[in-house]
């Protein structure tokens, strides 16, 4: 069965709920619904990790638990240290769900695609402004000792501010692979993952990725050393792809 077909899995108590759940995305690992939580006025991103029938049940339960807890722990830490991320409203690692504060806005990926679709008429400077924010957001995350683990332009939201889309702050999301108390190497790999993902998702904007790194360089004390390490990581990456 492909993960994109069949009846969506919902754990209790969401199975019987008259409160609307709107499916936003459904990936291999998780489905994301928009709903409300705790009060009818609190919009919520409900992330559900259904059991994977192709995995051994014990292993599956352990992985689900690990991802949910990794995400919640990283989000709570970020929130406490003043890094803007969705707030954790509730969760159950047994049933595989976490209720997160809903962030109104569009993913960086959609914003960049939108920029291109409009014929880049907002100009390079505008896009550079956005990429600078991305670099600073990642730098701030690294400065508090959190590594994201899956940095892509779809795992960051440009928070809506008033009516102007694409002008707000960057909110990082999707922390299921996040780790804490990490080494320079981990931070460098985090950047490398973003660089590669950016290049394949935004081939025409690839040349501007340097703007992300420039902004990152000035964002915390160890940033320059991490960027130096990034060069080694790239080198290894290239060797591997030549062999592989």
């Amino acid at each position, binding site marked *: 069965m492909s993960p994109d077909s069949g009846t969506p899995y919902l754990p209790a108590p969401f199975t019987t709920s008259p409160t609307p759940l709107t499916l936003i995305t459904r990936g291999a690992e998780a489905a994301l619904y928009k709903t409300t939580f705790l009060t009818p006025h609190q919009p919520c991103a409900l992330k559900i990790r259904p059991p994977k029938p192709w995995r051994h049940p014990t292993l599956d339960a352990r992985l689900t638990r690990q991802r949910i807890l990794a995400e919640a722990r990283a989000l*709570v830490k970020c929130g406490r240290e003043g890094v803007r991320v969705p707030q954790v409203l509730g969760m159950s690692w047994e049933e595989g769900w976490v209720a997160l504060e809903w962030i109104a806005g569009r993913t960086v990926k959609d914003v960049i695609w939108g920029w291109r679709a409009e014929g880049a008429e907002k100009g390079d400077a505008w896009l550079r402004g956005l990429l600078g924010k991305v670099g600073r957001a990642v730098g701030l995350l690294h400065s508090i000792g959190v590594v994201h683990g899956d940095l892509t332009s779809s795992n960051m939201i440009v928070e809506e501010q008033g009516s102007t889309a694409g002008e707000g702050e960057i909110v990082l999301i999707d922390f299921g692979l996040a780790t804490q108390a990490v080494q320079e190497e981990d931070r460098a790999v985090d950047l490398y993952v973003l660089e590669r993902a950016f290049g394949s998702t935004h081939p025409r904007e690839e040349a501007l990725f340097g703007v992300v790194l420039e902004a990152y360089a000035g964002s915390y004390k160890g940033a320059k050393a991490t960027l130096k390490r990034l060069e080694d990581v790239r080198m290894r990456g290239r060797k591997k792809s030549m062999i592989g």
Partner: protein
Amino acid sequence: MEVITLPHLEQHPLSVCLFRNVQNAAFLRQQLLQANHDFEYAFLDASVLLSRTHVLAACFRAITDVLHARLKSHNVHSEIVFALSPNNNIADSFRRFGISDQSTNILAIKVGGDASQIEAHLMQHVQGTPVLFTDATLQTMRDPARIRKIYRVDVASKEAEAFILGTMALKGS
């Protein structure tokens, strides 16, 4: 008294009443200690409550833990008290969030039941002034030093609620 319906837990309405200047906390506490069935409430000391959302998050956790047969205490009402606590020590959670003989501002919560009967029962037995259960009222009742000691967070900071909800959600992990 207010009846609150939590999204996704519509079959489990909460009857909630906040009282100021309660005179008979010792009596109420006695009823809980004697497991008097007429007093199946979560009685919380309002001085350690940050906000409405803080309380509702504990209720959501307690009710779902009951639905999944994961109770750590006797019933859903004691589980609400326990859910507020950052750690797994049940006695500790009762001492911190439950009422003491000296409590004066008390939040009473009952899950399910007939709202008008609950209201009548509370008005009859709690000697205090019912007030609106709002963030503004809670703010006048809370003791920032006690909350800071329990959760290790500055109550005045804008990150406080997110951190407290996160800590509660991570409990037992």
